[in-house]
């Protein structure tokens, strides 16, 4: 059995070694580096007060700890305990609630693990599962949809392997509701690229957007995107007309078979 090299002159040498090991294609590598040292630096820098206030904004103070949690480098419990030593419940509640989402999805999965790729419930969009395409089109996979903000978010996914949570929701909503593609196709694509890709959190989050694990579909409009992108996306491009409407108008366009008002 071959013992592998674990010391390298620099990161480029490590990347080249890994690429040769698994025969991976040449592709970009994330700026987010693995290892406990990085995880400890990020957890030490975590400010749950700022997180609670800003986490929905692309420029907000998010932790980027999810890749380390996914791979067991640090545990959610250790993080929660660490915060409990330094902050009162009201100041850490927002971050702890995000840890709880992960725990929640894992418990849901544990109860019925065989359903990980199945619709948990029917779509609440007025469409049936058969109305959604089963595979991801190349223009989405390659970030060539022609919708500027969508392509910008896909570029980040492909280049960095990490997306702000709000960007994940926007992309998932675009794939499922604007393009009417099964959530499973999008979920597989995310798992391939996200360095924090956890099949359970990923799949149930896609289902939450799709409405197969929520009471209503998640979608967004241009005002919402502009607000939370906070200057990080080119929101003024003409290709964004598909998002530029009120929620009622968008709902009528995206879910024409529904008769009652829907939320986001």
């Amino acid at each position, binding site marked *: 059995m071959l*013992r592998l090299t674990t010391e*390298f002159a620099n990161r480029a040498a490590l*990347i080249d070694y890994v690429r040769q090991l698994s025969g991976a294609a040449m592709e970009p590598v994330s700026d987010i580096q693995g*290892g406990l040292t990085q995880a400890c630096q990020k957890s030490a820098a975590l400010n749950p007060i700022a997180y609670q206030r800003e986490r929905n904004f692309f420029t907000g103070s998010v932790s980027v700890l999810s890749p380390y949690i996914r791979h*067991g*480098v640090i545990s959610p419990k250790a993080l929660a305990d660490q915060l409990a030593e330094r902050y009162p419940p009201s100041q850490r509640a927002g971050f702890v609630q995000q840890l*709880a989402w992960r725990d929640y999805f894992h418990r849901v999965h544990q109860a019925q693990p065989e359903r990980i790729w199945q619709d948990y419930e029917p779509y609440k969009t007025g469409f049936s599962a058969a109305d959604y395409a089963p595979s991801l089109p190349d223009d989405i996979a390659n970030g060539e949809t022609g919708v500027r903000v969508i392509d910008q978010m896909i570029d980040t996914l492909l280049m960095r392997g990490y997306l702000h949570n709000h960007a994940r929701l926007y992309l998932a909503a675009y794939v499922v509701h604007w393009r009417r593609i099964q959530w499973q196709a999008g979920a597989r694509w995310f*798992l391939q690229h996200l360095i924090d*890709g956890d099949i359970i959190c990923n799949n149930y989050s896609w289902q939450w957007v799709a409405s197969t694990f929520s009471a209503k579909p998640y979608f967004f409009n241009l005002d919402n995107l502009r607000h939370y992108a906070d200057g990080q996306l080119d929101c003024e491009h003409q290709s964004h007309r598909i998002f530029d409407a009120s929620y009622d108008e968008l709902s009528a366009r995206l879910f024409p078979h529904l008769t009652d008002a829907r939320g986001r």
Partner: protein
Amino acid sequence: MRRVFWLHDACLQRPLDLRVGDRWVYIWDVDYIHQQAWSLKRQVFIYETLCELAQQGCEVYAADTVVGLADLLDEKTELVTYAAQDPILQVLINRVCLAWPNLRLQPIAGLLNLEQAPPLKRFFHYWKRVEKPLLGFE
């Protein structure tokens, strides 16, 4: 009894109860990685983590996992690993378990232990049940 801790991609950390004479290993299994369809980005993240663990004594090999573990184990060795929920990883753990029925599967600590299972219909049902114990109100 000598122990070998087999680390997988859901438990990339030094085993807490490591004793003198124990070994801890990660096996870079290309077939498994291809089954997971991980991009180079994900592979590099994992490998960087392994490089740090190797500085603390973790051994990193390339092999089919079951074949590789066979090289490291004998009848005087106990094999230990950690439970995982990822279905592809579970298949791999099951393969290892078939080869070593005495594989000791340790649970990974959850966010909180509850005597009664919380309701799971929707997140807000669950949150109502876990908020207080999780934030230390009780």
